């Protein structure tokens, strides 16, 4: 027990490592504030394009979405970060993360929003158009607000996954929480910084998990 406490919850090391971890936490929050809106933007673009019924749009779009859903995000990130510089495109860690997340999480948000849009009866769209609203106005004022409400649990769930996924940025040396914890561990030869990082992630995300668990239970239980 003493060995465990000494290695994983060493108070002295918590105090020493906290400034480094705090910087990491700030970067993680900043990163999340960057990639969540980027992913949603990508998702909205995909979802709106998916309402176009021409096969010239539909099939390439589906191939695009499935490709980025099939490719593990870390593979995509490393490809952008370590591969593109060979042809002179060095976008840096932040740039690589931004592009990778736009492509990957955009595909996921896109699928969710598409399901939401499809849940709106066609009659509503026809009714909105017949009152004189344009195609764009119908989308923004009638379809999207209801679509978002219908798939809210999935949107929250995906957002939770995106925030968790920011930890892979540590692989390309972006100094977020996990990266900083690894740095602190290698200086102190003690696992406490990683443990603290885990606790910080848990405190940060637990409320979201609780809300989600309730929403999902209600959703599935409501299908009796």
């Amino acid at each position, binding site marked *: 027990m003493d060995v465990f406490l000494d290695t994983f919850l060493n108070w002295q090391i918590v105090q020493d490592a906290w400034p480094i971890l705090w910087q990491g936490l700030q970067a993680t929050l900043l990163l999340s504030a960057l990639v969540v809106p980027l992913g949603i933007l990508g998702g909205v673009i995909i979802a709106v394009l998916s309402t176009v019924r021409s096969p010239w749009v539909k099939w390439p779009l589906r191939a695009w979405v499935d490709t980025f859903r099939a490719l593990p995000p870390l593979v*995509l990130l490393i490809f952008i970060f370590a591969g593109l510089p060979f*042809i002179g495109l060095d976008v840096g860690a932040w740039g690589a993360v931004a592009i990778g997340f736009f492509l990957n999480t955009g595909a996921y948000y896109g699928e969710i929003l598409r399901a939401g849009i499809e849940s709106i009866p066609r009659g509503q769209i026809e009714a909105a158009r017949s009152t004189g609203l344009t195609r764009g106005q119908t989308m923004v004022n009638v379809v999207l607000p209801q679509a978002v409400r219908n798939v809210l649990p999935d949107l929250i769930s995906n957002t939770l996954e995106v925030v968790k996924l920011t930890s892979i940025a540590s692989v390309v040396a972006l100094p977020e929480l996990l990266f900083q914890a690894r740095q602190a561990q290698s200086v102190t030869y003690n696992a406490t910084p990683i443990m603290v990082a885990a606790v910080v992630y848990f405190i940060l995300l637990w409320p979201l998990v609780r809300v989600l668990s309730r929403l*999902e239970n209600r959703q599935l239980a409501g299908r009796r």
Partner: protein
Amino acid sequence: MTGWERFTDSFFNARVMAQYLPKIIEGFGLTVVLALCIIAAGLAAGLALALLRAFGIRPLNWLIIFVVDLFRALPPLVIIVLLFFGLPNAGVELSGFVASWLALTLVLMAFSEEIFWAGITSVAKGQWEAARSTGLGFLQTLGYVVLPQALRITIPPLTNRTIAITKGTALASVVAVPDILGAANAGVSFSFNPSPLTLGAIAYLVLFFPVVVLGRWIESRFAWKR
């Protein structure tokens, strides 16, 4: 060299690709084995926890809920790093493969427990009571009446979640497992050419593209008709 030549020489260099293809194929096998081990153990553990929760023992259920929440909130990479780089400081050494397997199994266990449990609670209380009143025991009711209905509605969310978590096997490359990504990374640093990464990306697409399409099909096939 023109831009196009430079592009193909970097990303589709036949010589480099031929050289590292065997390594990538080995990595492919390892990724598949790792993924199957995670799916088997994770789903079994998740179902076991959900069944345990059905007994309704209060303190035990709180513990289950906490464990599930814990592994839903923690990023998989953090768990892998903690197991692989953290435990050795306490004298416990896990191989990269075991650390990745254990971490992703725990994550899949948490997510699948949640889905199995939602499936079990979706079966109306009246069915429990009716089954019990005909003389079936608690376990018989669970096994013959509740689970068959519960499992059916859990199939679409479970498939999608399993696919998403299985893709996390690429994280194992961070702890030096020579899976597809690990082999590709090693290839890039030896050859100083990113073609192995292209091969790796293609390998992942070969592996997961059919799975994603299958998941899409299952979702529409098992969709709950209201």
